[in-house]
């Protein structure tokens, strides 16, 4: 990639935080598309902002050649590393990094374990989460029942293990929906610009202005379904603007690159440009934000269940168990601590995974 000295360093110390919030500025310092948004990008609270912030710092022009390698000092030219070894793509380079990152390995192992037990919980729990004996209600740990019993006399260990399935399912489905909807809408808006982009930007502002728990309370209180779909649908409804904003910014940054201009000059169609050239290079921030968001959706499900509008029994989920245990926290804190611990561990694993992937994908940090 030829150097373009007239373009300011996209990650100068002040670039990401213009007067209109971190994500409205583009790499060349101009305001994005239609001008400043009316609101700063949040409204969902700290955790989603963590995700968005992590992803936003990834918004450098991604190119197949990563920046300075690990060995050379900061002053050494970017290509020094490739003279020495076989050039690697951004993705294989990131993978190379990740394999050696203990944080990544630990969180990936935790997530793998969670996925396995959510597919077949009977591997490590032989009981039935719905078979309960009131005689044991609120009892502590006994042999064969390491986590004790809950308020209905159900085995907390079995319920915690089985709860993984629903919690992970909610997280994965909501993230898939949010990532798909958000990146398609945001990507198209960033690529085509114009009226659609302006409308979408205002629409995301509208969604950011509604606090998430509040929206959930209003929207889900009228739903009387026993399935996880209303909760997933609600998360997609209120989550997509975040991803859409990031995807839009990412596509705008990538779209300005020389290789895109070259492909366009060669007569590539919009579809080909978007799918073959832009998407692979613009997807990294979306992946990072989606990974971290997955954890936050699992926590959000628990919060919604606690407020009383999330999932409903007989569904077994951590959120339901935590909220069912909360009135008895004085007598039997173990009922709350085990599912809450599992929940926190899961969220932590996804945040750390997202963090590690972000670091690996960001050549600036090497």
């Amino acid at each position: 990639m030829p150097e373009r000295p007239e373009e300011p360093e996209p990650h100068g110390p002040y670039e990401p935080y213009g007067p209109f919030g971190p994500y409205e500025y583009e790499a060349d310092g101009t305001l994005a598309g239609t001008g400043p948004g009316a609101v700063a990008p949040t409204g969902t609270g700290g955790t989603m902002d963590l995700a968005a912030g992590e992803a936003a710092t990834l918004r450098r022009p991604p190119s197949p050649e990563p920046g300075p390698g690990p060995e050379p000092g900061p002053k050494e030219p970017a290509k020094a590393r490739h003279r020495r070894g076989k050039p690697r793509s951004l993705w294989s380079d990131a993978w190379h990094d990740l394999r050696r990152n203990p944080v990544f390995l630990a969180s990936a192992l935790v997530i793998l374990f969670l996925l396995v037990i959510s597919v077949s919980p009977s591997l490590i729990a032989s009981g039935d989460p719905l078979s309960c004996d009131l005689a044991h209600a609120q009892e502590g740990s006994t042999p064969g029942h390491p986590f004790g019993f809950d308020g209905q006399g159900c085995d907390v260990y079995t319920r915690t293990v089985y709860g993984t399935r629903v919690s992970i399912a909610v997280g994965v489905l909501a993230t898939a929906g949010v990532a798909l909807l958000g990146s398609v809408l945001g990507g198209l808006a960033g690529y085509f610009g114009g009226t659609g982009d302006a409308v979408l930007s205002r629409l995301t502002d509208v969604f950011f202005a509604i606090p998430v728990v509040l929206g959930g309370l209003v929207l889900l209180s009228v739903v009387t379904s026993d399935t996880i779909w209303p909760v997933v649908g609600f998360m997609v409804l209120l989550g997509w603007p975040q991803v859409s904003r990031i995807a839009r910014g990412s596509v705008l940054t990538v779209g300005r690159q020389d290789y895109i201009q070259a492909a366009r000059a060669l007569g590539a169609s919009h579809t080909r440009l978007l799918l073959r050239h832009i998407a692979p290079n613009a997807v990294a921030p979306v992946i990072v934000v989606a990974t971290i968001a997955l954890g936050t959706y699992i926590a959000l499900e628990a919060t919604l269940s606690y407020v009383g509008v999330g999932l409903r029994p007989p569904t077994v989920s951590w959120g339901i168990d935590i909220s069912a245990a909360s009135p008895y926290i004085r007598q039997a804190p173990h009922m709350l601590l085990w599912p809450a611990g599992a929940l926190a561990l899961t969220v932590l694993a996804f945040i750390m995974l997202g963090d590690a992937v972000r670091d690996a994908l960001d050549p600036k940090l090497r």
Partner: protein
Amino acid sequence: MGQYVLRRLLQMIPVFLGATLLIFLMVNVMGDPVAGLCGDKACDAATAARLKAEFGLDRPVWQQYLTYMGNVFTGDFGTAFNGQEVTALMAASFPVTARLTLVAIVFEVVLGVTLGVLTGLRRGRPVDTGVLMLSLVVISVPTFVTGLLLQLLLGVQWHWITPSVSMAAPYDELIVPGFVLASVSLAYVTRLTRTSIAENRRADHVRTAVAKGLPRRRVIVRHLLRTSLIPVVTFIGSDIGALMGGAIVTERIFNIHGVGFQLYQGILRQNTQTVVGFVTVLVLVFLAANLLVDLLYAVLDPRIRYA
């Protein structure tokens, strides 16, 4: 400056209308606003029709929305389920939540920024790693679990605080709830400040300040911190809305009769007026906080000037 404020105010109008319309639709289309008036039983058809005509609910939704907004701008938010004016409920509950949010913001600013500066200046040292790990743990535990545990430990086991807040909700009773409300954002503010400080340490103006021979303390507070605070201020400003809306959970745990409590009651009793009214005010607060933040930029960073 005046022009800039005016432009921002104009941009807020569609956002305000959109957000209120969204909530209005959620409440009115998804739920049946009359159902709550008949108690647990379903209304009989004639009564429902009469009530609908009385409240104008037989008209198209856009007309209802316009009527409602028209009333709101004259200060009429309607009546709550118990016949009280919604504005009276707001007058009773917003000060409480405002105090709670203020305590939370103070925690975010004082504790978050201090920890952020400490870790940002000592990047890679044990204290940095420790605080970073701690912030991740805090972020990954849901607020309501943090709240329940702190209430159990501090309130019930150690008797440091009263587990539930009284009706008056003075500041000293709101310290722990405010901390719980702030916890996730606090961790995020710490991380944000840390990144920002670490980035700005190498900035030209900081190097100049050091080269001038200014004392280290002055360099950090006047030169480094001031510009590093911009992303933090953005976050805190936009967090005000999220905190006030997210206070539902904290207020439920500590029995605080604030906005969250009233909203929860409104939703439980299917009272549209309360819900839409409170959300409207919350959205306004959110937008105002965002505007304020943008104006603060110019104070913090002299390079930003609004024409």
